[in-house]
């Protein structure tokens, strides 16, 4: 595997998918190394803000050398990204993070669970994972971004906070309402969702791979800014902290203290 790089990527296209949700395709050599659950750091041009923004990989087209990033407007940096037009260049740091382990799920009955802006990484995962996929998606409202694309990759179930589509409530409510089950879970989304999944997985005695988020600085494991609490002493830190950017962002739920 080639090493990490900071390099220029060219904007191929950008469109808005839902309120505050943008869909950006970039052309970059880094695409060839990208896997599901990994992420990149996107640098704003705005020089008042210096750090790369971690954005998960929604799709990686390794033939065309293209990465798809679906991100939420969260501040000054993502606001800038949302203005990018085809042909513009942007500085990219990648490929970062460990990604979801595909082997663990091959041939199994799996849950792919995405909540909010945790949904995008599920697409590349769904495309690569050879398994019986039940894809559980939690949205705020009926702006069901990526739902149709995910439906082409497996059986999709939707929950909305406002009840405007699918199950009213969250992804856990889908499981109970639809009486679903799985042998393994892959998930990305807000912390309360991940905590609920950890509890559920422990009850069922099944493995759950959770993708975490935290404020990051370097993105490459040097600064120790983005750690999470681990049950056991971490091999790198020798304390109960793992680096989300490099040891993660994907962790086995049972290894975490959430």
């Amino acid at each position, binding site marked *: 595997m080639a090493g*990490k790089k900071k390099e220029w990527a060219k904007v191929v296209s950008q469109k808005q998918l839902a309120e505050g949700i943008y869909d950006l395709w970039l052309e970059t050599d880094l695409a060839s190394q990208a896997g599901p659950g990994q992420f990149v750091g996107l640098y704003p041009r705005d020089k008042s803000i210096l750090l790369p923004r971690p954005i998960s990989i929604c799709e990686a087209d390794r033939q065309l050398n293209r990465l798809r990033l679906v991100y939420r407007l969260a501040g000054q940096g993502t606001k800038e990204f949302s203005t990018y037009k085809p042909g513009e260049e942007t500085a990219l740091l990648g490929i970062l993070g460990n990604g979801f382990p595909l082997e663990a799920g091959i041939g199994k009955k799996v849950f792919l669970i995405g909540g909010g802006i945790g949904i995008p990484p599920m697409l590349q995962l769904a495309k690569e994972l050879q398994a019986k996929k039940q894809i559980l998606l939690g949205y705020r409202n009926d702006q069901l971004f990526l739902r149709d694309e995910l439906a082409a990759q497996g059986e999709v179930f939707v929950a909305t906070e406002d009840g405007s589509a699918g199950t009213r409530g969250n992804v856990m409510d889908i499981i109970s309402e639809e009486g679903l089950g799985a042998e393994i879970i892959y998930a990305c989304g807000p912390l309360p969702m991940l905590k609920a999944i950890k509890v559920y997985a422990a009850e069922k005695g099944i493995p759950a791979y959770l993708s975490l988020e935290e*404020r990051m600085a*370097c993105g490459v494991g*040097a600064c*120790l*800014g983005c750690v999470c609490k681990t049950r056991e002493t971490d091999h790198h*830190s*020798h304390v109960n902290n793992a680096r989300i950017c490099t040891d993660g962002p994907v962790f086995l739920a049972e290894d975490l203290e959430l």
Partner: protein
Amino acid sequence: MNTKVTIAGVEFKNPVMTASGTFGSGMEYGEFVDLNRLGAVVTKGVASYPWPGNPTPRVAECYGGMLNAIGLQNPGIDVFLERDLPFLKQFDTRVIVNVCGKTVEDYLEVVEKLGDTEVDMLEINVSCPNVKEGAIAFGQNTCALSEITAQIKKHARQPVIMKLSPNVTDIAEMARAAEAAGADALSLINTLTGMKIDIYKRQFALANKTGGLSGPAIKPVAVRMVYQVANAVKIPIIGMGGIGNAEDALEFMMAGATGVAVGAMNFVNPYATTQTIEGIEAFMEKEKIDSLTDIIGCVK
């Protein structure tokens, strides 16, 4: 063209180093830059036993800089000696170990254990604003600074760099105290204590409330302090605070720094260290400077 500089008898192939805490022990940025190119790698702070650091969020962004409150998380000296030092010794670069502690004994234990290693210099962190005990308490008071400097000098087998806090009224006075107590060199500045509040959530951006401000935002304060210290003491200075390119590095050197360290700007540009070296070489060529030592403190 000679980019060599000497600090306390240790010769560096060039003055460009890494600022402690921004470069791990070199492994992570080794993917981006050739560590053999660097004047020195200055490691993340190493304590006598593993420290877990502070809760998250540990970092926040601000205008032209960032706040961190990592809290000196580190795996401890034993892991450092077993894993990180052998890694670093593979490269043709100087190794400076940043030493932290909560008590004088903590520091001395690390210093002792480093005594018979191939580490080139020790940088004593008495200026981290993010830990409650030790650290900055030693760095904001001339008596405490003198005391710990003298103790460490008594036990150290390598030249000792005292890393000074900028959160003081009179940096020259601190520098003089460290020099008088035997410090072989000084490094400055550590971070300025800062705070950020998220007005929508009505909470601190950092779990630790306050953090250390680094990045280009603090450069003018750092350059000023380097200049003041260079005019107050005779021992050499390693300057840092917002350095991200050759122009920044040269500004510190002209103010009086012999060495320069790239810190938070590594996060902005992982090639910042080697590009700084290349930029210095280009400047020397353009301005016909034979030896880099000629420009140290040239602006009076």
